[in-house]
């Protein structure tokens, strides 16, 4: 994009990857401390002919928060909780504020986020950009439907958006992966809670069929549900899993000692994987052994267990930097959704991953409820499977390409916040409302100031020669 021969000194860049630690491209990282520092950065990038993109906590697994050769607006320092309405539970935060920070502020006052991903270390801006889902998707949908208002610094200036205010642009921003501009402020409706605990039901399922049947039953009774699938066992044990379902506990559910401080919230500062080991620790043998122990330890059925928010929602956060354990080549998370009619694809996907010996170490299965209004939002009614897969093995590309084909044929799609390798041909097929989204973006940002590596990889027809 920059005119060649431009003699401006190039500011220092950093090579940044997604959470999967694979790939990595260089960009200038520009931290912002408050929303009013954002618009001048947009102008600066425009005048220098550089592309730009917001970056939050870098928890997208692939290249969604990368902008090679451009400017990344680092929202992390912009993290204040601005206002909490004690009656309605509507909260206003700066977009760099993390779910972690927000929970620490609101849980003790009896409120919870309407949707949380499997880690609390995401920014609210990033959560909006990916229209994130949680264990309650079957009941409450994705985060977009709980938003009241956003402040957006786009290519055409600063605007306030909401479901009833410039709705097209609002829904293009929800799930828009940062490509409509930088969300600077997020206003969302919280959920009332009586305690900071959950009442949890745990069940073991012998195979995929049983798992899906039990999940469907449990979904009807509980706000939260998810199945952890043993990704290694095949044959008659394919899809064997441990299902957990839960609901926010009421005061009556707690025993006397917990009742004295029902809204306490103190997720421990976690242990860390200190350095990247030279080889991945998550090898096939380790994974198989872990899966055995974990399945054997799980109760056939247990009800009424009390868990904390951190235990129930964010178990992975208890080991900081666990993504390093995959070793120097990093890993990818593959997540897709298929409509219920395509549930066979879940089985086929597990089989194909196993046949290629890709050691899917961590698989999560969940059923989604209704889709959001956002054209690029990921969830749709049906089954979603997420699998962590180490990068560096030979078979990974072709196998995932093959599964992509099955997913697309079944009318499903791959989650952009996790993706680092989908091919452009299938992207358009998986996101049929792409043209609609594109029309809004092109009207707003005809010069395509906002670009990500993910977008360059997927929207090839969008790219002009010499426009980098």
């Amino acid at each position, binding site marked *: 994009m920059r005119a060649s021969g431009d003699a401006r000194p190039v500011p220092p860049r950093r090579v940044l990857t997604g959470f999967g630690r694979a790939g990595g491209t260089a960009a200038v990282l520009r931290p912002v401390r408050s929303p009013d520092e954002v618009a001048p950065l947009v102008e600066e990038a425009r005048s220098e002919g550089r592309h730009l993109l917001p970056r939050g906590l870098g928890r997208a697994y692939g290249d969604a928060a990368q902008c090679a050769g451009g400017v990344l607006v680092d929202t992390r320092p912009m993290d204040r909780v601005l206002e909490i309405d004690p009656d309605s539970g509507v909260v206003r935060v700066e977009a760099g504020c993390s779910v972690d920070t927000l929970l620490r502020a609101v849980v003790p006052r009896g409120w919870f986020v309407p949707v949380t991903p499997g880690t609390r270390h995401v920014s609210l801006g990033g959560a909006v950009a990916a229209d994130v889902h949680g264990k309650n998707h079957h009941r409450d949908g994705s985060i977009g439907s709980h938003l009241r208002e956003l402040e957006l610094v786009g290519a055409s200036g600063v605007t306030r958006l909401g479901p009833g205010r410039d709705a097209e642009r609002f829904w293009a921003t929800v799930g828009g992966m940062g490509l409509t501009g930088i969300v600077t402020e997020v206003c969302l409706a919280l959920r009332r809670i009586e305690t900071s605990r959950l009442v949890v039901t745990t069940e073991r399922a012998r195979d995929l069929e049983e798992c899906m049947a039990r999940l469907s039953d449990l979904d009807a009774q509980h706000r939260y549900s998810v199945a952890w699938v043993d990704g290694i066992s095949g044959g008659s044990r394919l899809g064997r899993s441990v299902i957990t379902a839960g609901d926010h506990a009421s005061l009556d559910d707690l025993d006397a000692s917990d009742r004295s401080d029902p809204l306490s919230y103190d997720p421990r500062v976690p242990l860390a994987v200190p350095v990247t080991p030279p080889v991945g620790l998550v090898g096939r043998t380790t994974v198989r052994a872990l899966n055995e122990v974990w399945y054997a330890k799980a109760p056939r059925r247990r009800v009424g267990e009390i868990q904390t928010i951190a235990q129930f929602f964010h178990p992975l956060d208890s080991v900081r930097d666990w993504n390093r354990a995959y070793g120097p080549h990093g890993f*990818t998370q593959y997540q897709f959704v298929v409509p219920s009619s395509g549930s066979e694809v879940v089985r086929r996907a597990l089989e194909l991953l196993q046949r290629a010996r890709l050691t899917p170490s961590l698989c999560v299965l969940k059923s989604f409820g209704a889709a959001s209004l956002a054209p690029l939002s990921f969830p749709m009614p049906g089954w979603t499977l997420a699998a962590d897969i180490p990068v560096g093995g030979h078979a990974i590309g*072709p196998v995932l390409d093959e599964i992509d084909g099955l997913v697309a044929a079944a009318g499903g799609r791959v989650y952009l916040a996790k993706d680092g390798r989908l091919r452009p041909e299938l992207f358009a097929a998986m996101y049929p409302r792409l043209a609609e989204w594109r029309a809004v973006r092109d009207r707003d940002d005809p010069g395509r100031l906002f670009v990500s590596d993910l977008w360059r990889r997927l929207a090839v027809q969008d790219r002009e020669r010499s426009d980098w």
Partner: protein
Amino acid sequence: MNDVTGMPESVVVLGGGSEIARALLVRLAGRRLRAVVLAGRDETALAAAARELESLGVPTVATTRFEASDVSDHEDLVRRALDTVASVDLLLVAAGALGSAELEALSPEAVARLVEANFTGPAAAMLAFARVMADHGHGRIVVLSSVAGVRVRRSNFVYGAAKAGLDGFSQGLGDALEGTGVRVTIVRPGFVRTRMTAGVPEAPLATGPEEVADAIVRGLERDAEVVWVPAVFRVLLALASHVPRALWRRIPS
């Protein structure tokens, strides 16, 4: 963009008629390859390679002139390449010539030409590409070096010495590119059965272009800095550095 498994969408090849390059491109075409610029001297070989890629369904294939000795054209070559590809995901440096190692057959001009074809020309062009790629903030340069350059042998010493230069340059360039998002992968095959080596007595552990291409794909997937083909050369060449000269010069090929 290269995807997270290291597979490129756009490739520029210096030495576009090279059989190793063609074998590699065929493999990449099965993944996510969309645009290729074949740069080289032999127009017939370039055209044949281009037809092959088109028949494999690669949407955009262009050919252009690359003359190692014409250093003043190398920046323009980059511009020509960027008329076809928005950005260079992968630059494959595959240009080279074997030449002679017989004192009677060599002349000062012949030595200079061989060094130019194998080292200074490719190095100059690599630099021109590396600067633009660094500005774009991403990409990979794959350089075909040779075990012949790791410890130079009597039987192909001019070629080997030039490859030693190219190999060293590539290591240094890789270090200089640290922090730019551009990575360099050095490929060190042994004897490869190609047009270039036709008529040369085959050395032990010889491979074909297909095997070299497979090894490069694995190197991309593993984000490797060095790829030996076959892999055992890594150990053999480590040992070779301890072999005394008197013995080394007697090794036949």
